[in-house]
Each structure stands twice: as C-alpha cells, then as structure tokens.
C-alpha cells in the first residue's frame, strides 16, 4: 500500500525532460497552426452563437 521506495531510479528518466519539452512545443505548434488556419468568417459565425438566442 505504500508508494515510496519501489524503485531506486526510473530507468531512462533522463528522457523525461526532453519528452516534456517536446510535448510542450508540439502542443503549442499544433494549436496555433490550427487556430490561425481557421477562416475568419467561420469564427465570426461561431462567436455570434450567444447573441442568437
């Protein structure tokens, strides 16, 4: 039931930092590309949803 001391070391933990950075960069790149490729007209249409009811 106790969590600690199962492992002396997570094998290959060094890669964690690199993977985290990669996830971060990839995530933002994908998000920003996707946002800026969306057409303005469509965004305007969606942004009016609250006003239509």
């Amino acid at each position, binding site marked *: 039931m106790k969590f600690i001391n199962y492992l002396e070391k*997570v094998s290959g*933990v060094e890669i*964690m930092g690199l993977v985290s950075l990669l996830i971060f960069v990839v995530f933002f790149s994908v998000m920003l590309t*996707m946002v800026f490729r969306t057409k303005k007209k469509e965004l*305007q249409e969606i*942004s009016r949803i*609250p006003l239509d009811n």
Partner: protein
Amino acid sequence: MQVEKFYYDNKIVKAFGLATILFGIVGMLAGLWVAIQIYYPESSLNLAATTFGRLRPLHTNAIIFAFVGNASFAGIYYSLQRLCKARMFSDKLSWIHFWGWQLIIAAAAITLLMGKTTGKEYAELEWPIDIAITLVWVIFGINMFGTIIKRRERHLYVAIWFYIATWVTVAMLHIVNSIEIPVSALKSYSWYAGVQDALVQWWYGHNAVAFFLTTPVLGLMYYFLPKAANRPVYSYRLSIIHFWALIFIYIWAGPHHLLYTALPDWAQSLGVVFSVMLIAPSWGGMLNGLFTLRGAWDKVREDPVLKFMVVAITCYGMSTFEGPMLSLKNVNAISHFSDWTIAHVHIGGLGWNGFLAFAILYYMIPKMWGTNLYSKKLATNHFWLGTIGIILYAVPLYWAGFEQSLMWKQFTPEGQIKYDFLQTVTNIKPMYIARSVGGSLYLIGALMMVYNIYKTIVSGKFIANEAAEAAPLVKEAHPKKEYWHRVIERKPVTMLVLSLILVAIGGLVQMIPTFLVKSNVPTIASVKPYTPLELQGRDIYVREGCYTCHSQMIRPFRDEVARYGEYSKAGEFVYDHPFQWGSKRTGPDLAREGHDKNKRPDSWHYTHMYDPRLTSPGSLMPRYIWLLDNKIDTASTPAKIRAMKTLGVPYPDGYDKIANRDLMHQADSIASNLKKDKIETASNVEVIALIAYLQRLGRDIQGEAKKPIAENK
C-alpha cells in the same frame, strides 16, 4: 426545414440561483466572523464548533463549493441550454444534481463544525461526503453531455469547452486527492504521506482554484459578457488559444505552493516555470473580455451588470498577474505564510468570483421573471460598496503581509532575532481590524442585492418554461472537406478526452518521480512512527484545524533556522497521514515545538490551551477549554493503528491490541509531570494527548542535528 419548438428549463436555474444567494451570505458571514476572531479571539464564544480552526474551513468550503459552485451551476444551466438550443437532457437529473449538491453542503457544514475533517485545505470533507460529491458530479456530467449531444447548434461555443474541461478536471483532481483509508464512519487517513501528500494536495488545491473557480467562471464570462454588451467576444481566435493554453499550463503550477519546502527542488522549479507562463493565457483572456467592450463603454456607465463584469475581469487580471509573481522564489520567500496570500486570494474571490456571480444574477433574474431590475441605482450602490470593500479588505492585508514578513527576518546587530513572533502579530492587529471593515462593506453590498432581487422577483412573473425555436441538427450528407480542428470542436466526447489527456500530463510528470524514485524522499533512520497517544493527539490537532494558523515546515532561511531550529527534511514526514505543513502563520511554526531548543514544560502547554493569554500576553489564539475535559477516544486506537499499518507505517504485528496500554502509560507520565507543577488532571483527557503530540514534534532528528543528517539516498 421544419423548426422545432421547445422550452428552456428556468426552474433549475432559479433553484441554483437562490442557493447561490443564500450560501453566499452564509459564507461571507462565516468569513467576517473568522476575520473578527483573528483580532478578538473571545468572539469564538469559547465553543469548539465556532472556533477559528473549524469555522475557517467552513468559510472557505462555503464560498468555494456553495457560493461559487451554485453560481457556476446556475450560469451553466442557463447558458448551456441556450448555447445548445436544447432543454437540459433530463429534468430528473437536474434536480438530483441540485438536491444532491445542497445535501452535500449541509453535510459539510455540520461535519466541519463537528471537527470531522481530513485536514487537507479545501478538501476537508470526510470520505462519505467525498463519495457523494463523486456521484453528484457524475450525474451533472451525464446531464451536461446529454444536453450537448442532443443540441440543435452544430458548433460548440467556447464557453461549453470551459464547462467540459471543468467537469473532467475536477473529477480527476477530486478522486486522486481524496484517496483515503476509512477508520470510522467519519474519519479517514490520507493514503499519501508527508511530501507526497503535500504534492498531491497542492496539485489539487491549486487546480481547484483553476478548474472550480476559474474555468467555469471564464465560460460564464464568454457567454454573459457578449450577452450583456450585446456584441460578440472581441476575438474568438484568442478565446481558443486562451482555452487550450490555460488548461495545459495551469495543471503544472501546483508546486509553487511548496517553494522552499522539503519538496524536491526539480518539482519546485517546474512549478515556478509554468506559473510564470500562466500569465500569458490569463491575460489573453482578460484582454479578450475587456476588449469586447470596445466602443461600448457608454453602456458600462448605464448598466450595473457590465460594471460588475468589468471589475470582475480586472480583478481576474490582477490576481493572475500577482499569482506568477508570488511564484517567483524570491517573492515567495517574503509572501509565503503571510497575509499577502490571503489578500491575493480575496482579489480573486471577492473580485473575480463574487462580482461575476453578482453580474450573472443581476442579468438572469429579471430575464427569467420577465421584468426589469427593481432598482439600477441600488445595484450601482452595491457595486461601489463592493468595490470599496475589496480595496479596504486587500490593501491592509498586503501591508500586513509585507510588514510581518520583514519583521520575521530582522536581526539585531549582535545577530539575534529582533522580534518575538508574538510582537510581529500584535503589530498588525490594526490591519486585521481594517480588513474586517472591508469585508463588512462587501457583505452589506450583498445584502442590498438580496433586497433588490427580492423586489424584482415580486414585481415579475416567473417563466418556468421559456419557449424557443430552432431547426434540428441534421447530419450533412456530404460533409465538405474541413479543417480537422472544426471536427474536434464539434465532438464533445473527443473534447473531453483531449482535455483529460492534456491535464493528466502535468500531474503525471510531477507525481510519478516523487512517488517512485527513492532519492526524492530520502528516509532518515531516526524517524520513528508516532506512539498511540501522539497519534491520538495528532488527530485532535487535525480536528481543531490547528493547521489553519500554524505551519510545520521550517524553510532553509537564516531567520527561520534561528527562530525554530534545523530546517525541515523530506524524510521527517514519512509517517504523516495527512501532512500538516500548513499554508499560513498566524501563529508560529510548530515543526520543532518539542525539540530541546524550543521545549516548554507540559504545564506550559496545559495552561496555554486553557487560556493562551496566561502564558503569552497579547496572544490572538483562541482558548481550547473543552480539551481539558473531553476524554480521549481510546476505543478508536486499535482501528487507527491498523489503518496506519495498512498504509505502511511500521508498527509491530498485533500492536493494535496492546496500543492502548502504551497510550495510558504515556498519558499517566504526562499527568504526573503536570502534578509536579501543581496541575491536577485525569490522564485520559484530550489535552494530554495533544501535549504528547506537540512535545514529540521535531524530536526525531534532534540527536543528529549537530552533524550533517544522513539521508539514505
């Protein structure tokens, strides 16, 4: 195409709205009461139930879960139906959600005042209530997703994304942080211990702010602000970036609550970096809100709803600027454990959450009763009173925080600590008084709203089912090729899964190494489990909410080491279920209270609990008279020992059966110590157990403090 006629359910919105008002007032009253207790301890009435340590969790829980929670639900039920052009999925589920939540609130109020608490801030509720929260949350989720699925609007407006992220993340946070082992019907121990418990708790605590007090309220902002201003949000593109960046970054920032503590350094640094980054999405959201009003500022002059929203959004901006600043280690060294933190959260609580809740109530209630607000003038007065109240609340506390923290750090030219802890507290008493005046103004403003809303309601006629029309959503036979984000954005379940993955990453990266890698929590051979009496004493310490005023975490600063002793090590807390590091020092740190350097006689503690002002003139601590008479609950000892053993605390096999014998033996020796100092008391009273616990604190590594402490890496 044939349009369909349907009805929005306003009744459920009304119920949540009225609950918001009721619990808002209750929560604020509790807040005012504890604010007065800080400078006038007699106002605790010397009753266990109304003493600071129990009333403060009631205040925080009432404001977070009852006031802001109900306000968010009211706003979500109102806006979700209209954004989806559909009635809620199931009226029955709506009402189970409503009554379930109110029952949880009632149970919370009763149990917290009874001292039934897990001792983890903002997660104080005991295990049966935790289970009830989970069930009600699932009901809410089914109802929300059911509504989204049967919607008549193709696109999911950004507000709904915020609601989805709220639901999934709160579920994750609540479940992970509430894993505990029941000892009795209303008592449990956290599964995690010490450093790990602290990491999980502040991952939860920080993200409760993010996903219970921020994301749902941002969703409400994105719906109600365009509605009230009658114009679309400034930049929808920015709102998408705001959403994804906010939920991705927020979840990493929890460790900034644990800077300079025994948490491993790398985890602290990760928390700092992500906290600083948070400023970008937060300010993106704030600017998006304020820019929505471009060219409409004349409306702000007229409309109290917009007035409240402008200050709410400004306060959101202020507290999300301040948050990253407080996460910088050099600023945190001054702010942490001081009243600065309290000021910071109240800019968020009173300004952002409170004012946005008032704004949506002022908006929805006249609409649902088909009338106009009874008095705009009264609402404007409420606005000004509230705004002045916030300033009067926060400014004195900023001052108090700075001043006290700097006093803690002063040394005389001879190298001695310049001020006693008590001097630094009594010095800021005037600021505490000013704060309660600010809080009172805010409360008076809220009472004006109650009157205004009552008059509005009686002047209108409630529209329980509001008619609406929309064309049904049909599947496009040949969907034109579109960018894949538009596809995700239309699919609520995909949104849910993506949000979950995103918020899980941050938690996992921080937790897995802290839990699994041995070198992150070095053990110290001399640290031993608590004796049965100390364990009972510790439970009393948790029950009375001592952690709301006392920390048990000495940071590695010159002044703290000089004042309290050797700085705290991760290995010292391995048997602490739950951890009791605390977050605020209204009283001094107690991590080394029993250490020879600080040790006081048992009789001092006894007298101090009876009346703190007898031993420490001018002290602001309440009296704990009942501890002198209440009997120790020895019947619970075996179950407690067994639970601790299950959690990995190395008591010998079969120790649960003989634990009470050791307990009485230790209690008798404390009682005879007291007798030597002319204090006659039975040995089976609670104060004896508490003394045993306090005298134990910080003793484990005492003999080793001279040489560097060997941590087994």
